[in-house]
C-alpha cells in the first residue's frame, strides 16, 4: 500500500540523519535529526527534524513549543497520554508521526499546524478530533486507524487537499453526511468498522481510486456508484451484500472487485460485459455454479476466484 511506502521512506529519512555533536565539522542543523527536545533546544533557531521514535518518553516536554522551525517530527511508540498545548507553536510542521501512543484527545492548538501535509495518529485511543482541524488545508495523508472513533465529525470534510484517509479498525457506525466534499480523496480505507450504510454524498468522491470497505456490515452499495469514475479497486469483503448495483459495470477504470464472504446469490447482467476487469473475488457467496461458468465464459481474461 501507498501509505506503507510513505512510511518506510519517512523512517529511512529520519534514521538516516546524524546524531549530532556540536564539534562535528559537517554538521548541518537543518538536516540533522535531533533526538531529544533538550538537545534541539540548543539549536532552536534552526532545528528542523526531531525524532523521539521509541525513546519510551512518557510526557512530551512542553518546551517543544520553542522549536518553531520544526518541520518533521516523529513521536512514534512513546507513551504519551496527551500532547501539551504548546505543540500549537510548531507553525512550520509538515510531517508528524504520533502512532502508537496513548492519546485520547488532541489539543485544540493543533489547528495551528497550517502547513501539515502528513499526519499519522494510528494506534492511539482517539474518539474525536478538535474542530480546529478545518485549518489543515494542506493535509494529504491522515491515518486514524486503530483508534476508537464511532463516528467522524463533519469538520473532517474540510480537509481540502486530502488524498489518503485511513480509518480502518475503529468502531465507525456511520460516516458524516457531507463525506462527498472530500473531492480530492484518492484512497479511502474503512475496513474493520461497523458501517451499515453509506451516506448519499458518498458517490461524489470521484477521484477515489481505491476503496476499502471490507469487514463492515453493509447490505448494499450505492446505486449510482458509477459516478465514482476513478475507482480502480473496490474491496467489500466480509459484508452483508445481497445484491450489487448494475451501474458498477460502468466503472471503466475498475480493475479489481473483492466481494468474498457476502450474501450474493446472483450478479447483475451488466457485470458480464466488464471486459476490463482483471480480478473478481467471489469466495463465500451462495452463487450457483452455472453463474460462475457463465461469468468465466463472458470474461475469459479476468481472474475469477470463487
Amino acid at each position, binding site marked *: 500500500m501507498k501509505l506503507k511506502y510513505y512510511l518506510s521512506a519517512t523512517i529511512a529519512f529520519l534514521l538516516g540523519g546524524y546524531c549530532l555533536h556540536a564539534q562535528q565539522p559537517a554538521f548541518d542543523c537543518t538536516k540533522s535529526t535531533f533526538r531529544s527536545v533538550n538537545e534541539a533546544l540548543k539549536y532552536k533557531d534552526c532545528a528542523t527534524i526531531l525524532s523521539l521514535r521509541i525513546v519510551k518518553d512518557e510526557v512530551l*516536554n512542553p518546551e517543544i513549543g520553542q522549536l518553531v522551525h520544526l518541520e518533521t517530527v516523529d513521536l512514534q511508540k512513546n507513551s504519551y497520554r*496527551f500532547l501539551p*498545548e504548546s505543540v500549537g507553536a510548531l507553525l512550520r510542521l509538515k510531517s508528524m508521526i504520533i502512532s502508537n501512543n496513548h492519546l485520547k484527545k488532541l489539543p485544540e492548538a493543533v489547528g495551528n499546524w497550517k502547513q501539515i501535509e502528513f499526519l499519522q495518529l494510528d494506534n492511539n485511543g482517539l474518539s474525536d478530533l478538535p474542530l480546529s482541524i478545518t485549518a489543515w488545508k494542506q493535509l494529504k495523508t491522515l491515518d486514524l486507524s486503530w483508534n476508537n472513533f464511532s*463516528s467522524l465529525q463533519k469538520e473532517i470534510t474540510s480537509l481540502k487537499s486530502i488524498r489518503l484517509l485511513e480509518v480502518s479498525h475503529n*468502531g465507525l457506525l456511520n460516516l458524516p453526511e457531507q463525506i462527498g466534499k472530500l473531492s480530492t480523496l484518492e484512497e479511502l480505507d474503512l475496513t474493520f468498522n461497523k458501517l451499515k450504510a453509506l451516506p448519499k454524498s458518498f458517490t461524489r468522491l470521484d477521484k477515489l481510486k481505491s476503496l476499502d470497505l471490507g469487514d463492515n456490515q453493509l447490505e448494499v452499495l450505492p446505486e449510482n456508484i458509477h459516478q465514482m469514475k476513478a475507482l480502480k479497486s473496490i474491496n467489500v469483503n466480509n459484508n452483508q451484500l445481497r445484491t450489487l448495483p448494475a451501474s458498477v459495470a460502468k466503472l471503466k477504470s475498475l480493475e479489481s472487485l473483492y466481494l468474498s464472504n457476502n450474501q450474493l446469490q446472483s450478479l447483475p447482467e451488466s457485470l458480464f460485459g466488464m471486459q476490463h476487469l482483471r480480478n473478481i473475488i467471489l469466495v463465500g457467496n451462495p452463487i450457483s455454479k452455472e453463474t460462475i461458468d457463465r461469468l468465466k465464459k463472458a470474461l475469459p481474461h479476468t481472474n475469477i476466484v470463487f
Partner: protein
Amino acid sequence: MNMNKHWIKLKTLFAIAAVIITAALLSAEKQNDPVAQVSAYFRTQVDSLQGQVRLLREMLMTRAPQAQVQEAFLQSRLTYKRIESLVEYHFPETALKINGPNLLEAEVSEPEQPIYPTGFQVLEEVVFASDNWEPKAAIKEVDGLIFAVNRLKAQQANMSLTRSSVLDAIKLNLYRLITRGISGFDVPVALNSIPEARSTMRATVQLLNMFPEADQMHQSAQKTLQYLEQYTGDFNEFDRAVFVSKYVNPLCASMYQYQVDHAIPFVQTHNRAIAANAPHLFSEAAYDLSFYTPTGAPRPTAAIIDLGRQLFNDNRLSATGKRSCATCHMADKAFTDGLALNETIAGDRKLLRNTPTLLNAAYQPVQFLDSRVTFLEDQVHDVIANPAEMGGAFEHIVAAYTKDKVFRKSYQQAYGSNTVTAANIKYALAAYVRSLTAMNSPFDRYMRGDDQAMTAQEISGFNIFMGKAKCGTCHFMPAFNGSVPPYFEKMESEILGVPQTSDTLNAKLDLDSGKYHLYKIPHQLHSFKTTSVRNAAVTAPYMHNGVFATLREVIDFYNRGGGAGLGFELDNQTLPPDPLGLSEREKKDLEAFIGALTDTTSYKQKTIRL
C-alpha cells in the same frame, strides 16, 4: 544507527545536564524556590528507593527469611509513596511498571499478545505467598523494579516542574489516596494501606511546606497527617468517611485557595474529567462533563435538552412506531424498566442485556456494558439503528420530522435552523441523557461538609464499602463506577463470574462474552464495564443479565467471592475469589450506604421544569 551508542550519548548529556542543574540549584536561593526544593527532594528520594530495591534483591539472592523480605518489600513501598505524586505525574508509564495492577493488558491490534503486569503488586503476590516461598521467582520482578527506578533516576532532569504542576500533582495524588490508596487497591494482599497513607501524607506535608506564605495549607496538611499518625487501628476499622470529609477535602480546598490567593495558574490540560481548579473531588460541578462530550457538540441549552426530552419520548424513532427510548428507560423507574431483560421490537425473544439506568450515564468515559462506544451521540445512533431494539433508519426519521410542523418549531428554537439533520437529532438526545445527572445524594452532601446528611449506619456502610468489602477498589469514588481516578478518562471492565440464574446450588456461568467480542482479547472474556452503584437502590434487578433481584443477592454474591464462590473455574476472574466474611450487620450497613447514594430529586426537578 547504533542505539547503544546513542544511549550513551544521551546519558552523557543527561549527566552533564544534571551537573549543570545541581550547580544552578546550589547557587539558587533554595528557601524561596519551591520548585528547586521539590526537584532536590525527588532526587534524594529516588536514591533511597534505589537503595531499597537493591537491598531487596540482595536479600533474595542470599535467601533471607521470608518475613525479612516482606519487611523490606513494605519499606520500599513506603519510600515509593513519598514520590508517588511526582512519578505518576511525570512518568505515568514507569509508575505503571512500578505499581500497576496485577492484571494482564493487551494492545487491541495484538489481542493474542498479553502484556504482563510488573512491579510491586506482582511482587507482593510472591513475597506474601502463604506456601511455596520462591525467592527466585521474586528476583525477576525485583530486577524489573530496579530497571524502572534507574529510569527515574536517569530521567529526573527532564521533569518540567513548575509551582502549578507540583500543586497539581499533589492534589491528584490526594485524589488517588482517598479513592484507591485507602481502599487497598494497590496493596491488596498485605493490606498495608494505612501505613502507606501515612507515608503519602508525610511526603505531602513536606512538599507543601516548600511553598511559602501558606499557613492555612500547611496547617490543614499537618492536621491530616496527625489524624493518620494517631490512628492505631487496623485496615478494616479505619474511618474513611471522617478522613476524607474532615481532613482531605478541606486540605484540597486549602490548596485551591492558596493557588487562587497567590495567582498560581491552574494547570490546563485536556486529559481529565475533574478540572484542575475544582476545590476538591466532591465539590459541586467538580466534573467537567464536556470532557465526555464529543468536540463539536452544541452547548446544551435548555431548548436543546427539551428537544431531546421530546425525542426521548417519541415513538417515531422506532421502525414500528410503537417504541421510544422511554419504553425501556422509564422516568418513574429511575430510567430502567424493572425487568431482568426486555424484549426485541418484534417481541420474539429477549434482549441480550438488562436495561441500565441513564442517571449519571454522562459520567462514563464509555457507554454500554461492553464499552463499545465512547460518546452518548454514538450510543444513540447504535440503539436507534439496532434492529432488535428500535430498528429505525435515520433517513426516514429525518424525513418524518421534516414534515412535522410542531416538531420543527421546537427544533428551530433549539438550533435556530429549519433543516432537520440526523446529527442534530443525536445531539439533542445525548444532551437530554447528559442532563440526567443525580450527584446530590446524602453521600454527596456529607462529603461537602454536611455531617448530618448520612446516618451512622450509612457511614458505617461507606467504610465497609471502601474497606473490608473492597467494593471501592472497582466502583471508584465519586461516580462509583469503573472510571479510574484521578483522571477518570479510562473505564475498567471486570470479570466477576455472574451466573445465569440466582440458583446458587446448580449455578451456571452466564455465557455473554462481554467486552471480549470487541477485539477478541482472551483475558477479556466475560468482562463487563463496572457500572455505577449510585441509585442502585432504585434500579433492580442487577447485573448485565438482570440476574439478581435484590441488593442483598448482589452482596451475597460478592461475599462468596463471585463466580469462584459459586464453583466456576474462571482463571481470569478479576474479582478476588476469597470470601469477604461479611456479617449480617455489615451487609445491612452496606445496603444502607447504597441507599445513601440515591438521588431522585436533581433529575426530577429538571424533568419537571422542562
